[in-house]
């Protein structure tokens, strides 16, 4: 047949969501250079390492939230599950549980929240905003109660200094190939879920129910199973970030992960994930998380107030969605 081979560059940009992701990367470079010109320290190796480490948290939760945004849903419980993961693993470790076992138990608890979200949204058909608002409070409450409404002691007090240091080093303070381990953890998570989303049946189903759940259902896709899988992915991502925060503090903080669900939405949306579902690439989420962190870091480095930082980030998020809307309107016109 007359299937023309597009030129490689055109084919690259023909991938749905690629244009938005590339715009986010371009914005990243501009932001980075602008700050670097104001404050040369932005370019220093130490700062780059710090940025890579800090953006990792946003990237991982951003991946989780992106899965939901692509299905046309949202996960507001994400930040609370981060906190729950940190509190459960830290509490267990202060009682001398092996970090591996502690992590597995925390993972199981997080996945339960994911499944509940899936049941509420995919089966009971509650609006995702409301369903996950409920689990958001519930998960945060569980996080509080794990250690009797107190932050935990240092994890080293339970598993010993050596094991404690090893845990903290593995997730936060250690370096591999000159880059903090946190970043490598994020890279591994990214690769796994990038593969799952773009190369597997499950990934296809996630895009399909986000684009048109009725049509997907009539094509034999289980909307319930797919929604649940997406919520489990986000719960898994929250679990990983919980471990990272636990390693960073060396203890469990009850407020760990507060507001992260919103940071995650921001990272996805800046990277061109449509909050209406059906489109977006994790590559965009990567760029979005990096833009976010570069902004925060750059504004810090030039000594901007915290309030100003928040305002700038707020404006950027709205601007990113606005751009998406404008681009969409443009394409719709072209299609007639």
């Amino acid at each position: 047949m007359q299937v023309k081979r597009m030129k490689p560059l055109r084919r690259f940009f023909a991938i749905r969501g690629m244009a938005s992701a590339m715009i986010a990367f371009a914005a990243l470079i501009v932001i980075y250079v602008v700050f670097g010109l104001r404050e040369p320290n932005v370019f220093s190796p130490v700062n780059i390492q710090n940025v890579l480490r800090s953006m990792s948290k946003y990237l991982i939760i951003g991946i989780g939230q992106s899965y939901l945004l692509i299905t046309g849903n949202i996960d507001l419980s994400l930040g609370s599950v981060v906190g729950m993961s940190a509190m459960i693993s830290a509490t267990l470790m202060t009682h001398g549980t092996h970090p591996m076992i502690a992590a597995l138990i925390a993972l199981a608890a997080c996945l339960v929240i994911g499944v509940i979200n899936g049941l509420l949204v995919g089966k009971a058909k509650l609006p995702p905003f409301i369903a996950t608002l409920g689990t958001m409070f519930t998960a945060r409450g569980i996080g509080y109660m794990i250690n009797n409404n107190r932050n935990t002691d240092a994890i080293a007090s339970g598993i010993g200094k050596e094991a404690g240091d090893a845990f903290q080093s593995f997730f936060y303070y250690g370096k591999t190939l000159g880059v903090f381990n946190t970043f490598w953890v994020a890279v591994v998570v990214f690769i796994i879920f990038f593969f799952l989303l773009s190369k597997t049946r499950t990934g296809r189903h996630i895009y399909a129910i986000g684009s048109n759940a009725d049509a997907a259902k009539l094509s034999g896709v289980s909307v319930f199973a797919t929604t649940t899988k997406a919520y489990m992915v986000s719960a898994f991502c929250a679990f990983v970030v919980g471990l990272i925060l636990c390693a960073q503090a060396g203890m469990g903080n009850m407020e760990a992960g507060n507001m992260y669900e919103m940071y995650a939405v921001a990272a996805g949306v800046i990277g061109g994930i449509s909050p209406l579902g059906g489109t977006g690439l994790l590559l965009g989420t990567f760029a979005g998380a990096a833009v976010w962190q570069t902004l925060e870091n750059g504004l810090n480095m030039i000594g901007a107030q915290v309030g100003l930082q928040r305002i700038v980030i707020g404006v950027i998020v709205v601007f990113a969605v606005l751009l998406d809307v404008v681009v969409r309107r443009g394409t719709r016109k072209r299609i007639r």
Partner: protein
Amino acid sequence: MGEIIVTMEHIHKTFPGVHALKDVHFELRSGEVMALLGENGAGKSTLVKILSGVHPRDSGSMTIFGQEYGDLSPKQAQALGVAIIHQELNMCRHLSVAENIFLGREQTRLGTLSNREMEKEARRILGDLKIDLDPRKVVGELPVSKQQMVEIAKALSTNARVLIMDEPTSSLTSREIDDLFRIIRELKAKGCGIVYISHRLEELRYIVDRVTIMRDGQFVSSANFADTSMDEIIAAMVGREIKEKFPRVSTPLGKRVLEVRNLNAGRMVRDINFSLNEGEIVGFAGLMGAGRTETTRAIFGADQKQSGEVILDGKAVSIRGVADAIRAGIVLAPEDRKKDGLCTKLSIRHNIALPNLDTLCDAAGVVRRARETAMCVNAIDNLRIKTPSVDKDVATLSGGNQQKVVVAKWLARNSRVVMFDEPTRGIDVAAKVEIYHLMNKLKQQGIAVLFVSSEMPEIMGIADRIIVMCDGRITGELSAAEATQEKVLTLATRFETKVAAANQ
């Protein structure tokens, strides 16, 4: 016939990459129904969108009621009395008839709504059109035909004198169409000019005064309807003679493939029994809302059924969900392609692959891209889907090509039974014929084909056997040889008489 009220001359319009209108000429007189005809993509919609202010034109002039205009805004067009009724109705489903009619122009007194006055006014407008409808009814609870009439009433309440109707009959039953035509005649008598866009050529003769035919963005011809034959119209639309409108192939009847016994699923599917054989196409005829769509959905497992057996190749199969049906080899190409058929934000590739991922993935659930590409390219070839690449978004395709993608999804796998629900709705003549050819091909391959259609000629022309439904029940079965339009219609209107039952 009245004076000329709309003249459009030398209209050009380009969209990025498409020259949608080239030097188009159009004229409308008061008190006439002007059919605007052409295949999908001929530029009809673009033309009426320019007239109603939705799109600006690139060049050309418009004269409306003697006044020349450049570009119009939708608001200006409305003020001039140009109203458009879209194929997809634009109503607030949760609001009442009166609220919809006065939406955006609510009458108030001292800032509070004058509901009673608006209801009275709405009742007067509906009464003028002889539409029997309570203005307090919630629009979402009305049948589509009534909703459409509300839409017409709304247009008239703004004193529309130019009324554009885009495929107004596509979702109506024959009786509802009669009502619509009656209303159109009323409007004509009041001096309205009506632009009537439709693919259903057979209904033109009831109301149309003149026709304007477009092809590939160009004006082809304009004539009095009485002076032209249907063959001439079709020839002008497609630019070539279509030899056979309904291609029919005969194949010897094979063994029984599907049997449905005592199927019950809600009010619209009651005690359905029928069977399908190899080598035949079975058409499901009936009025809109007869339960045909619901029957196919129940067989396919999309809706729950209360009882009933599905027997495939002599073995009973248990279908609890769509996935079960697909696995067994029973598939359904649904009615509404935008709502049920396609993921419009995804590419052709992803749409065709979606129901076939079981065969395209390896054991780990990873999609085998080469296999997938082969399947999609093959489907595009077989169905002659016009696209430069399998990775194009389905939203960029024309209606006919989108419909082919819906069909392609299901032909890429080896099924035993293929059900089509209104496979040719809203697509052009040439694409329709291709769909017919495709059904014939399936029939020759020994696949049982069932199709639901509201177009009588199509059912008569394609089906080997016609099953007629009315009000959720099968009311009769006719072979192609014995079927006449009258017989089908009689069966389709065989409602249960509730009064008699109550009196017994």
